[in-house]
């Protein structure tokens, strides 16, 4: 077994890390969050120039041909620096469905995406889904020209900035293929598509997406039935792994910041770092981060190698990181004391991002149930 990145991967990781260290300290991040724009266009453009946006796409699609291991490498660094730029939404979610379906229309969006000129979002989950991929109600009626879609999608991150939305729907009950899952790509200015946009607690933008008899052509269909489901599954697995990596990166920073603070801050005449109970709590944080990282590596390797148990490992890694990241965030706030509860310090912002990640695509209980189901079926 070997858990080292290869030379190219390490060089890439170093370059991502250096760029973010130079360009994305916490103050810059807060300035971006407080600005009118949803995120920094400059950072997005730089990430395109540095090749980050080509990472998961195949060489035929103009990409770098990276694997799940490259995904965790990038997202660990994004998580450390708490980036608000929509890498998960554009690159992993919308980009993930586009590259896996590879229809002519899908492929036509990939080049501008890699160039940093196109933003995307995945409008799949609905208020009742709670992480379950098949729990959706949006309907597609079959029309002479293609389809007519109606439904409501919930908490769609990056929808306000997106040029295209990847939208799912179920074939309406009166048609021949009733109940079949369909995936479409829809430009955001399509008639009948409307957004209720809002800022999010983790410094980004999202929207409730309404589809009211949106007309789409047959060419906008990306996949249907079993193929659509397996594309969604693979895309969500990659997204869950990316979220896991973000949490692992966040845990490293929370631990490091807390250890530093405990050495500086004095109470009862001594540094906090001298209190055994606090030393032990920081050791718990260390263990949380390292256990999560270990399972994340295993899941990434299995996903890259497409092993039979890859999905099981992704579910396990997400569950472990969910629990561990919450532990780290809570310990970091507690050990910082009053100052840890303020908007000024970064630990609270990590806490908010972690809590959003924990809930966005189904909570820990849901993924534990999924893990159990995957165990039974393997």
């Amino acid at each position, binding site marked *: 077994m070997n858990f080292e990145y290869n030379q190219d991967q390490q060089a890439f990781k170093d370059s991502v890390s250096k760029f973010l260290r130079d360009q994305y300290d916490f103050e810059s991040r807060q300035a971006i969050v407080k600005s009118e724009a949803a995120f920094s266009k400059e950072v997005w453009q730089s990430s395109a120039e540095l090749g980050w946006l080509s990472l998961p796409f195949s060489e035929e699609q103009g990409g770098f041909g990276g694997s799940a291991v490259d995904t965790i490498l990038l997202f660990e660094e994004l998580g450390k620096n708490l980036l608000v730029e929509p890498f998960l939404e554009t690159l992993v979610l919308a980009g993930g469905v586009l590259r896996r379906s590879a229809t002519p229309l899908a492929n036509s969006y990939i080049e501008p995406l890699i160039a940093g000129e196109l933003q995307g979002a995945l409008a799949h*989950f609905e*208020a*009742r*889904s*709670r*992480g*379950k991929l098949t*729990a959706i109600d949006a309907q597609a009626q079959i029309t002479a020209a293609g389809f007519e879609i109606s439904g409501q999608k*919930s*908490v769609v*991150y990056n929808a306000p900035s997106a040029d295209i939305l990847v939208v799912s729907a179920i074939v309406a009950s009166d048609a021949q293929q009733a109940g079949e899952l369909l995936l479409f790509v829809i430009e955001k200015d399509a008639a009948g598509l409307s957004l*209720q946009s*809002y*800022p*999010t*607690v*983790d410094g980004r933008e*999202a929207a*409730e997406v309404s589809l009211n008899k949106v007309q789409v052509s047959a060419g906008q269909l990306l996949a249907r039935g079993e193929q659509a489901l397996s594309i969604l599954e693979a895309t969500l697995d990659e997204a869950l792994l990316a979220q896991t990596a973000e949490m692992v990166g966040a845990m490293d920073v929370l631990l490091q910041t807390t250890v530093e603070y405990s050495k500086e801050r*004095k*109470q*009862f005449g001594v540094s906090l770092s001298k*209190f055994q*109970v*606090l030393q032990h709590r920081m050791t718990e944080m260390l263990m949380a981060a390292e256990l999560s990282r270990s399972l994340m590596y295993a899941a990434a390797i299995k996903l890259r190698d497409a092993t039979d148990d890859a999905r099981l490992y992704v579910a396990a890694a997400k569950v472990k990181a969910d629990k561990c990241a*919450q532990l780290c965030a*809570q310990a970091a*706030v*507690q050990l910082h*004391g*009053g100052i*840890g*509860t*303020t*908007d*000024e310090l970064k630990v*609270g*912002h990590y*806490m*908010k991002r972690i*809590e*959003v990640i*924990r*809930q*966005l*695509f*189904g*909570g*820990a*209980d*849901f993924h*534990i*149930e999924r893990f159990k189901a995957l165990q039974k079926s393997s």
Partner: protein
Amino acid sequence: MDLIISQENIDFRDEVRAFLDESLTAELRRAGERKTSYFPHVEASFKWQKILHDKGWLVPEWPLEHGGTNWTDEQRSIFLEECSLNNAPGLLPMGLGMLGPMLLKYGTEEQKSEILPRMLSGEDVWCQGYSEPGSGSDLASVQMRAVSDGDSYILNGSKIWTSFAMDSNKIFCLVRTNPEVKPQAGISFLLVDLDSPGVTVEPIVSMDGEVEQCQVFFDDVRSPKSNLVGAENQGWEVAKYLLEFERGGSSFSVYVEKMLASTKAIAAETTTFSGTSYSEDPVFSSRLAELEIDNMALTFLEHRIKATAAAGGNPGALSSMQKLVGTELSQQVDELALELRGNYVAPLQNHVLEPSYEGETVGPASGVHIMNHYLNNRASTIFGGTSEVQRNIMSKLVLGL
């Protein structure tokens, strides 16, 4: 031993309920329902204070001549419980719950007659100046100086984590009047007018984006010596009494009970992806039940503490246990509630938490406070002595370690 509730108390509960039904407007109830903090929504709390004051129920535990009610301990518990479960907005505790009882014990007759009526009427709003940037849980290390100058003190230094200083006009402070002696022996308890020249109040934004805390700066601020409570350099005894009040005086189980009731109600109307309600979900309902059992234990711990106090005993370090268990339990309820809120933890919509807001919410209206409550409530195991400090107190005072 008995757990009997008398007919008299059953009638009393009905009387309280009838009063609450009549006096809690929809807006006041919303303030209670969407409360994201241990503290109330300030404007709603002022309205509620006036209603209670008019009724004569504002400070049930005070002596009758100062506005109390002569209720029994059980009746006071019933009142607090009914207020909480009926989503009454709550009251700011610094004056009515902390300084008031303290003055009744340590204040001069003049201080009582001058300060207490203005506190009850809401004319004066008090905040607590204990913590300083360098002294959090280590309260004996306060540095803010009070230097004697004729009939007054001249104050320099700053206080931090001063809850609602921006809505207050008065502050009670621990100040250092003698730096030469051991830390506890050189502290005095002083009342200061926040409108005095040289006072600056700066709000601190919390991670949920709201402002409850402030830092208060004192730059050559003058305060008369008649504003001392207790003697000069005797402030530590007064402060300790107040801290015990802060930790033990309020009922944490009632607070947790309300959180549990609200979580249960939301669980009943929220469904898992398969369409069953969370109340029926075996995993979720077991986790909720476990927290309910924990809170039942806390409830009776608190009953025992009150019974001890009523019999003239000193519950001592049990108030640390109550604060520690109550706040940690409330945080566990918060965590469970996040699971119910699901992906709707994400929208930032602090404006809908205003009691006057009647418009649409993103995601179900019934749980809009959940994420903010979770974030805000992380402070509860820090303020009033951290959980770590409470454990130290118990190991020292109870276990003798």
